[in-house]
């Protein structure tokens, strides 16, 4: 799975597209891995822009959980933003909104993760 990437100061915004399910989750995990390796204290923060994600299954959610655990272990910050209504419902029903940092929009996510990133986003 290709991840479109944009950088705002110390924060990388990644944009997956389509369905994250049993057939695409391994690709999503592999594409995410190099960014999560740098998601650490003093390095990058990562925000996933889910505006183009149509569906996420349990295995896709597990990839997010593993990424979140890795970020915490490394002292980094990971957020997910701009969920489509159906995907937001899946997050709610699976209780992932209780264990991941989920934001209504990319801008609100950046505001929480990194003020310099928000300034760069607003200036862009």
């Amino acid at each position, binding site marked *: 799975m290709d991840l479109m990437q944009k950088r705002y100061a110390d924060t990388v915004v990644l944009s997956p597209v389509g369905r994250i399910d049993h057939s695409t989750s391994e690709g999503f995990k592999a594409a995410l891995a190099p960014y999560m390796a740098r998601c650490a204290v003093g390095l990058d923060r990562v925000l996933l822009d889910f505006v183009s994600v149509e569906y996420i*299954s349990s295995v896709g959610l597990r990839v997010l959980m593993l990424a979140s655990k890795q970020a915490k272990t490394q002292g980094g910050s990971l957020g997910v933003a701009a969920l489509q209504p159906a995907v937001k419902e899946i997050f709610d029903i699976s209780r992932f909104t209780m*264990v991941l940092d989920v934001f209504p929009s990319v801008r609100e996510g950046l505001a929480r993760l990194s003020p310099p990133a928000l300034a760069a986003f607003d200036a862009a």
Partner: protein
Amino acid sequence: MPPDERLTVKFWGTRGSIPVAMTSAEVRRKLIAALLRASGRTLDTPEKAAVFLERELDFAVSHTFGGNSSCVEIVTGRRDYVLCDLGSGARVFGNDVLATRGPSGNTFHAFMSHPHWDHIMGFPFFMPAYTSGNRIRIYGCHADLEEAFRGQHGAPSFPVDFSRLPAAIEFVRLEPERDYEIAGLRVRPKLQHHGGDSYGYRFQVNDKVVVYSTDAEHKLDDLAEIRSFADFFRDADLVIFDSQYSLAETTSIKEDWGHSSNVVGLELCQMARAKRLCLYHHEPVSDDERIAALLAETRRLEEITRGDRRVEILAAFDGMEIVL
């Protein structure tokens, strides 16, 4: 089972891990909610009151999901009884047998998922075991199944030793991934992820299939395992599924605790093209409102993820009957 007869599944115990009892505070809360809804109405006969309860009150107000631990009966139309697990619900089942068919001359076939306490604790209070002339066959894949049953019957845990039970009790070891013909059913056990292992059972009679799959954790990144369970559930009329935790819990703080979620149950049933998913082995912390909310959420999840076929979603409660 004659071809024109239908298969019925009866739930005698649906709670996971430990039996629970509704508290006085919960009863009071239900009564207050019901009385408020009834205000201004004339409910002056039992019939009118019953209709009001059934039609106008939410299930969580007018009923309870119940608190007995795992025990499910599969009614085949034959004289022999077929059960899955012997949790505390088996006590209620046994008393019902005494009341409806008498104390002796009955045969019971019990398929055990595993010997954890909540799945065997009903047996010391299973009254048919205390009457000669009854025959009880306990099936399972665990080598230590008989030891577990005898252990809970012995001192210092219980006053009546297993050896003093008058019924004819046999333990029958099964192998997973093999088909057996027992009590008119084709039965296939399957190994599941759980502490000390557990086994699911796929039951088939004529064209009807019931899968009993409790105390099972599913490793989401193991595609081969996911596919093998989709095959195990394939085209089932009913899948009884351990949905004790949320998906977030099973992938975080309760990973490797051996249970699953409503989300994974639905995905497996969708892959398997199963007709019905029954949420089962309810979390003991959950009250009736919370289980009802879990049911509503799972139905909503089914709606927004539905492909070309609907999966009917149910939540098991003690006393529930499903006719297939």
